[in-house]
């Protein structure tokens, strides 16, 4: 479904600010896989998401979706296949437009945008049904400007907009990080529900280890631009935060030791 081969990306190569953001990243997801991604700040998680979405182009290596290479396919074209929710609740919606207009734009993701009215009667009904599944009462506020919604409501809407056209891949980059704990909880459970409902192939970045363990069937840990730990479905079931941290320390230690060995 989604494949990354030997992806390298360096920012500001050859300058003082050189940053190896991704180094030899391999990834292979099957249809319906739900991958959670953890790792410290600057590990390259967002960069990985941006490579998949097409916001960034790797220096070398390639990205394949359903077996066909998309490495150099422009972001907006790739977006037909990929739904995204950003960390910033402001980022995923158009604030000065109404809820129904936002949904209409999302609904056109994989269709040609023509001169038909964006919000038809039929679509309104459909949007209402989908909004009802969020249980936030948004179905009664179709004509409210999205800028008036709270962060949590907006993020729920973004999630719906990113998913209800059933994209091949869903990218979630710390999409609950800007919310208070109870709202974050709500969005997390909505995420699990929606991903399950549409059987979406999903990648989710989170700093919440418990969340990373609870959700999904695969987990990777990133550090300094590399995937240092890759857990499959069966291993993941009996993983705990403690084991995860220990594993991190162990790998880090090994790595440091090997770095030392190389450096003499």
């Amino acid at each position, binding site marked *: 479904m989604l494949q990354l081969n030997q992806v390298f990306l360096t920012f500001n190569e050859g300058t003082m600010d050189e940053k190896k953001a991704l180094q030899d990243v391999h990834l292979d997801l099957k249809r319906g896989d739900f991958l959670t991604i953890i790792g410290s700040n600057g590990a390259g998680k967002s960069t990985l998401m941006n490579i998949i979405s097409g916001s960034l182009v790797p220096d070398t290596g390639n990205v394949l979706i359903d077996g066909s290479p998309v490495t150099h396919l422009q972001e*907006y074209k790739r977006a037909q296949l990929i739904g995204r929710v950003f960390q910033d609740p402001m980022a995923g919606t*158009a604030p000065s437009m109404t809820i129904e*207009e936002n949904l209409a734009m999302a609904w*056109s993701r994989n269709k040609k*945008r023509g001169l038909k009215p964006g919000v038809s009667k039929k679509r309104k009904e459909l949007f209402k049904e989908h909004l009802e599944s969020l249980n936030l009462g948004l179905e009664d506020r179709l004509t409210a400007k999205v800028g008036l919604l709270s962060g949590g409501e907006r993020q729920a809407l973004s999630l719906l*907009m990113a998913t209800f056209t059933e994209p091949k891949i869903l990218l979630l980059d710390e999409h609950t990080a800007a919310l208070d704990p109870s709202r974050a909880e709500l969005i997390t459970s909505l995420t699990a529900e929606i991903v399950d409902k549409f059987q979406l192939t999903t990648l989710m970045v989170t700093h919440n280890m418990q969340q990373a363990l609870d959700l999904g069937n695969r987990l990777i840990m990133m550090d300094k631009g590399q995937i240092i730990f890759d857990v499959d479905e069966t291993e993941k079931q009996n993983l705990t935060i403690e084991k995860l941290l220990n594993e991190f320390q162990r790998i880090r230690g090994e790595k440091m030791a090997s770095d030392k060995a190389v450096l003499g």
Partner: protein
Amino acid sequence: MFISIFGAFESGIIYALMALGVYLSFRVLDFPDLTVDGSFVTGAATAAILIMNGQSPFVATIAAVIAGFLAGCITGILHTKGKINPLLSGILMMIALYSINLRIMGQSNIPLLGKTTIFTSITSAWENANLSAPFNSVVSALGIPGTPKTWAILFFSLIITLIIKFITDYFLKTEMGLAIRATGDNEKMIRSFSANTDILIIIGLGISNAFVALSGAMIAQHGGFADVGMGIGMIIIGLASVIIGEALFGTKTIARTTLAVIGGAVIYRIVVSLALRVDFLETGDMKLITAVIVIAALVTPKILDSQRERRRRLRKKAEVELAALEEGEKRNAAT
């Protein structure tokens, strides 16, 4: 007095088309497009030269619209493909258009007096049917001195402007229109929903300048000439109309806002014509008057807001003090 306000109303309705174009670029696309000064003249020049060479005025006007559309598209291409900043793209196009407009016209001024324009045929049909008479009798019945030559131009322009307004309202609610609005609102978001924002910006600016050129073509036919300098400061007039209209009539919905923009264009014209009646002001002061009107339109709402806020705070303070006083009295009474 009535005649000059009538004239201002008439031309205001035509300039409103230009203002709608400015609304599309500045407000909807959030793109400060200065192409307008040039594309207005491009519209006037294209229509004028075609009419002078004996083309039908309707064909000439449509050609003007197409020319304006192309000019806007080029500004869009400069910005999206050439990665030039919006302001600079517009200025570059405006400068380039100055020369292009001269080329189109072949001279710096084309008189259209005595030529058949979109207005002449309609006016003669209208007057033959004697349709102005009822309006004139209403005006005289109200005791207003002076009657305009014809009402045909006013009504014809009003119909054109309203048609364009309704088309705009409809368009901004279509799938493509929604995507164009979102491009101005949150470009990253709409791109993540697979919209080609480059194309949308190019199309949006094309439509915007098509409206501007239509306005220019009609103003040339209305005024009886096209001049290479007639677009100077047009962008400010357009902005003034948008700002005045939005401030006075509100922006609750799109239909309301486009109506407000038309209203703003008319009011701007009326204010200018009234200002020009003041003795010490002359035609050369137009641009200065425009600048003052825009500044007033920008600053007044803010001043009103802060005054309202200050009054609210004072009231709040008084309430709190009163409550404290009453509290104190109650305590005194108790002891």
